[in-house]
Structure formats: C-alpha cells, structure tokens
C-alpha cells in the first residue's frame, strides 16, 4: 500500500466535499469593485498631477518674464508712477537706468543700490502729487533727513553708473 497514492486519493475526495460558500462571491465582487474604482481614481489622480505640471510649466516662464522689469521691483508696477504724474516713458527711463546699474555694479552693490533707491523712491512718491509737483513739506523732519542721507549714500553709485 502506497502512502502517496492514498494521500492523493483522500485529499482529492476531501477537496470535492469542500465547497466555497456562495455568499463569498458577493464579498470578493465588492472588493473587486473597490479595486476597479480605486484604479480609475488613480488614473484621474495621474491626470491631475500631469495637468498640474503642465500648468506650472506654462506659468513659471510667464512669471519670469513678468518680473524681468527691474523697475517693477522698485515701484511695484507702472501704475504707481502714473499716479504721481509719471509716464510710461519715464518708467522706461528708470528701467534703463536700473539695467545699466545692474551691468556696471557687482551683485552685492546692486542689491544695496536697489534697496536704497527703493527707499528714496518711496519718499519721492510721498511728496509728489498726481501732477508730478514736489511738496517737500509733505515729509516729516525725519523723512526729509532720511531723504538727504539716501541721496548722499546713493551718490557714489550714481557716479559709478554714469561715470564710465
């Protein structure tokens, strides 16, 4: 008598008597539905990520172009100067001046220069009305002092820029 043969035979007979409960089908089907929905969800997630990347790819260069105006850093936008009697042309002039400064100054110098220039512009804007007329009395004493200091601090930079 061979144990191999008997084992095979018995296991087969026992297996035949074991039946997968029919209600298990519903459960497996539910998890299958869950899997299918999850798969679709994942796909739309992929799409969403892709859309995000494309949007970023479009937006980033346009943001770079937008901030390529150095004068924007000082004034915010051309509207600011227009409200104080300035024009598109004068804005363009300032822009050219800044571009020239960027070319002639070192990076650190330019940073310092823009910072000082920005402060000066703020004060200038404060004392200039919409027609472009200066009213020094609009500034406080401290502000007037600050304005003068800024002028003397900026002088060497101006010399350097306009010099050679």
């Amino acid at each position, binding site marked *: 008598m061979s144990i191999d043969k008997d084992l095979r035979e018995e296991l087969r007979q026992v297996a035949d008597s074991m039946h997968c409960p029919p209600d298990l089908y519903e459960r497996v089907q539910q998890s*299958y539905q869950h899997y299918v929905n999850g798969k679709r969800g994942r796909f739309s997630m992929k799409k969403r990520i892709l859309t995000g990347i494309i949007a970023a790819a479009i937006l980033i260069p346009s943001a770079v172009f937008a901030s390529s105006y150095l004068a924007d850093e000082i004034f915010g936008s051309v509207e600011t100067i227009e409200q104080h009697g300035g024009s598109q042309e004068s804005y363009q002039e300032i822009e050219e001046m800044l571009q020239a400064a960027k070319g002639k100054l070192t990076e650190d110098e330019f940073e310092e220069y823009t910072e000082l220039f920005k402060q000066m512009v703020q004060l200038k804007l404060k004392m200039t009305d919409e027609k472009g007329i200066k009213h020094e009395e609009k500034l406080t004493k401290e502000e007037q002092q600050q304005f003068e200091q800024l002028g003397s601090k900026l002088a060497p930079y101006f010399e350097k820029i306009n010099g050679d």
Partner: protein
Amino acid sequence: MNDKELLPWLEKATLGDESAFQLVYQATHQDVYRTVAFLVYNKQDIEDIVNEVYMHMWRSFHKYDPNRPVRFWLHGITVRLVQDWKRKTWRRIRLFERNRQMTCEQFEWTDKAVLQSEMQYELFSLVRQLSYKLRVVVILRYFHDYALDEIADILQIPVGTVKSRHHLALKELRKRFEMTGGDAYVH
C-alpha cells in the same frame, strides 16, 4: 477552463471588465478556497484570505511571469497570503495576551463537511495534525501535484528544505498511522 483560456480573461478582469471577473472567479474560486481551507482552519479566516487572494490577483497581475502556468502563480499568491495571515495572527495573539482581554469571540470553526471528512478519512485527519510547515508541503505535493523544486519556488525556500520537510511529513504520517492501528505503509 485551462490556463491558456484563463489568461486573457484574467487580463481583462484586471482592466476592469466585470464579466471577465465573474469568469475568472468561477474558474478559480473552488481551487483557491480548498487550498486555503487545507492550510487554515477558521472559517472566517479562510474567507478573509480568499478575498485577499483575489485582491492580490488584480493588483499584482503585472508581476505575472507568462512562462509559468497561471495556477502556479495563483498558488504562490495563496500560500504567501496564508503565511502573512499566520504572522498577523501570531501578533494578534501576543496583543491579546498583553491586554488580557479574555472576551469570548464568536468563532465559527471549519465547515461540517471538513469535520466529517476527518472522521471518514484517517490519513487526512493526520495531515491536519501536522505542523503548518510540513502540511503545506504535503498539500502542494499531493493535492496540487507540484514537484519538489516547484514547491521550493512557491514557498521561497531551498529545495533541500522542501525535501527534508517532505520526508519528515511522510515519516510522521506513517508513524501516526501505525499508532492509530492502521495497516503499515511500505516505505
């Protein structure tokens, strides 16, 4: 349905074709259920594992090696999940002891059919008493007719280990069979 017929349906099912899913389930569920039921005895656990096996089938279909039979792949998943489940139960038991929550869980033990078989088939009842490591080898060898090297592949253990477990399992079965008064098996 044989392996070659099953494969395209399986692929369709993983892509979300519900009728293909039904076909795959019909073609495989008894085999999966029986394999699990030979290895795990709690009815609720058997059903949980069968459900998991199908989840894994859909999710890991891309890992299926077309040079191998579908059933071989399927049995690999089944056995791995049974082993995962055993590890989890072990953890659960330790947690159980730590919390000392001796609440009576309503366990529904294996079908009556299996219990009846145990009475009827002496050898089978002895197989059920073997340790899991020996039993899984016996089931794969004598229920699924896998060669020892294939069993090694499924269990992801060396062939030598499978051989020694196989040998040990038969030795145990012979010994116990004689002890229960059955006729001695020729070696």
